């Protein structure tokens, strides 16, 4: 049993308690809704980025897809009915960017960092062509859904739960097994008959779709578009995944930890706010939490190995 997701969740819970002690109304429905809706797009980005990190890759282009998605949403969600149509366009576009990444990485064997650096830049350019400056608008009836509740839970929380359910299904699929195998050892996976090209295309394609979904959620949250918003969200997405215990060396980790990591990151911002500190403290705290999470994960693992070694005959 991997304990690293537990560490991410433990960090999130500690931060939540600190936050609750300072801000007594935190348990109110409104506050919980805010927390979930501020986290949900990061969870979506982290789902895709986590899959990519499992294959020893990295996807920077999710930043571009996020920017482009909000830009399309802010300019084309004009009347009821158009939202669904244009949401599908955003998702198809995200998938297209991802498949392009996957093809360049899987078939032409280019480095993920370089490929996605390039597509990040390209897609960011497209975002600026669609919406040159921050603005546009999302119809309120559509945007407000993210801050509403259904069956006693915030809608944002339902989306996170849906993603977790989707993950626990996906985890049991052949494709997912191939992804872990590929990240564990690309050569070994190929020997075992894994088609590394199609697997990588699927992984980056899924990362693109996740980023596109994240962009729609983000647009709903801010009720407007921002053609550069994605640039600041790439590293938080990677951070959430890593706090959640996914290894940059590939082959180990998972989405459950990522969700904990994403909540931890949002809660850091909340705690900084609750203590009336300037937001500069948030960046500093992000880094400290990242190091704590990674150190704790490593310490627990070596402790277990030692215990296992003592048990061995």
């Amino acid at each position, binding site marked *: 049993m991997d304990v690293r997701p537990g560490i991410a969740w433990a960090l999130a819970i500690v931060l939540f308690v600190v936050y609750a002690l300072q801000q007594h109304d935190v348990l109110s429905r409104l506050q919980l809704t805010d927390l979930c809706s501020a986290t949900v797009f990061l969870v979506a980005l982290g789902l895709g980025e986590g899959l990519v990190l499992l294959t020893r890759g990295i996807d920077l282009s999710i930043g571009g897809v996020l920017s482009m998605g909000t830009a399309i949403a802010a300019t084309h969600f004009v009347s009821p009915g158009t939202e669904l149509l244009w949401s599908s366009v955003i998702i198809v576009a995200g998938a297209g960017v991802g498949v392009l990444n996957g093809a360049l990485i899987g078939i032409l064997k280019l480095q993920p960092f370089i490929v996605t650096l390039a597509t990040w830049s390209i897609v960011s350019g497209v975002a600026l062509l669609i919406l040159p400056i921050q603005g546009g608008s999302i119809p309120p009836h559509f945007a407000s859904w993210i801050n509403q509740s259904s069956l006693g839970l915030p809608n944002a929380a339902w989306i996170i739960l849906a993603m977790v359910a989707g993950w626990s299904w996906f985890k049991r699929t*052949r494709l997912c*097994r191939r992804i*872990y195998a590929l990240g564990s050892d690309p050569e070994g996976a190929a020997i*075992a*008959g894994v088609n590394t090209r199609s697997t990588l295309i699927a992984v980056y394609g899924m990362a693109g779709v996740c980023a596109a979904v994240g962009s729609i959620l983000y647009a709903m949250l801010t009720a407007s578009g921002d053609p550069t918003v994605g640039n600041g969200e790439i590293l938080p997405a990677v951070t959430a995944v890593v706090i959640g215990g996914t290894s940059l060396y590939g082959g180990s980790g998972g989405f459950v930890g990522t969700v904990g990591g994403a909540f931890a990151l949002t809660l850091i911002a909340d705690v900084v706010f609750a203590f009336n500190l300037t937001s500069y403290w948030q960046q500093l705290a992000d880094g400290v939490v990242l190091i704590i999470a990674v150190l704790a994960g490593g310490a627990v693992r070596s402790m277990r190995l030692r215990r296992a070694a003592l048990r061995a005959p």
Partner: protein
Amino acid sequence: MSRQANESGILSARGVSKSFGGVAALHDVSFDVLPGEIHALVGENGAGKSTLVKIIAGALSPDAGEVLFKGDPFKPSDPGAAAEAGIGIVFQELPLIPDLTVAENVFFDRQPLTRVRTVARRRLRAECVEAFERFSLTGIDPEAQVRDLSVASRQLVAILKALAADPSLLVLDEATAALGPSEVTWLLEQVRAAAEAGVAVIYISHRLAEIADICQRLTVLRNGESVGSWRNGELESEELVRAILGRRLGQLYPGIPPTVKPKVMLETKGLRAGRRLRNLDLQVKEGEILGIAGLEGQGQLELILSLYGMLTSHGSIFVDGVEHRINSPRDALRAGIGLALVPEDRKTEGLLPTLTIRENLALPVLHRVSHLGYISSQKEAELVGPTIHRLNIGRQDPSQLAGDLSGGNQQKVVVGKFLISGARVLLLYDLTRGVDVGAKAEMFLTLNELAAEGYSMLFYSSDVTELVNVAHRIVVMFDGLVCADLLNDGSLDEEMIVAHMLNAADRTGVVGSLVR
């Protein structure tokens, strides 16, 4: 048996102990080497040999006990300090710097300098050429980047580096693991010459034949403790194996039961791939273990890789009489061919370390345990359970991480994977490299059982002794062709095979493509 440390030893270890996280890697080990002596250190993987070497090298410091070098307590702070003191070490994991040239590696940190303290490139090259001549090593360009060399050539460079520093103590930790027979011969000659010149040598190898060939004394380590030291020849080989294992091993080689049936399971006609595999005709019968011998780089790896679809090949491949086009590992699996490959750098064994045993075993056949892409854990467990049990893998816990298994057990996982996949032809590439005798013996028994069940095997090994004792038939490859096809009917021995390997080279006048 002479257990007490000798006062005149150039290096003496006295009661050395070292633990890692509560596990004793070495416990109260004493040991000494005399000037001009070749002293072998033998034991299973994990017996503590490499830990002892690392202590001598200054990479680790002992928890208790001391090491005397030339009579004085010796505590090198790091491997650089040990090298300066006159200890030359060839480590098991080749610590050469891949992006530097051969010459820069051989003279690393003692390069000749110009007046303005930059490296004198021309003199560096000249000195390296001189070192090559002095130790009669040919076939490697001093200006080549180490990254571009084969693993065997890298090993030769590492050995040359240690020799060229004129050490008073030379330590060779598994230096022959990556070498072919002619290169081993070269190494043993150099080691003998160094010893005659008064250098003390600590020689570590799993190949007991080499040890019998070259050493004056040997010390056996087992579970971190010294079992004893003996003169060479004092122990029968059976007694030696028992000292190493601490138990009776039936036999290292279980014999070669007659399991070959007439049906041809694998046949190649005019197989060509890359520059090294030129035109290969080969037949492997049902239940046959076919040994592949040859000097390094005669197309053996290309043969295995093209049969497994990892290298584009031309020509025909027949499995069980049916011609198959094999362009990817998936094609090979579909045709019933499995591959157990120990890659040259031995980092992986086709094994996925962060996945469990169960996940590793089921990976090639996920379609058999899943429906619409969704895996049934029950079916998966039913599929892998019998194989884990049968091959006796580790603690027989399917959820154990493969990366936590011992080397021998990891190889069982690799073999098991292809048994489950339904492969009838197994390609075994250097399966036993660096594996200790206990695990080897178990693996050979498994191979015999598989042959008896009708599996066909292509068995490549760089250890000729192993081929003679395991294979029904041995083909010697040279320059991408089969140059000899020898039935192993009891009349074959190692020398005859090596003679074939070298003869072919002689005939074509490319003797010593690597080593004279």
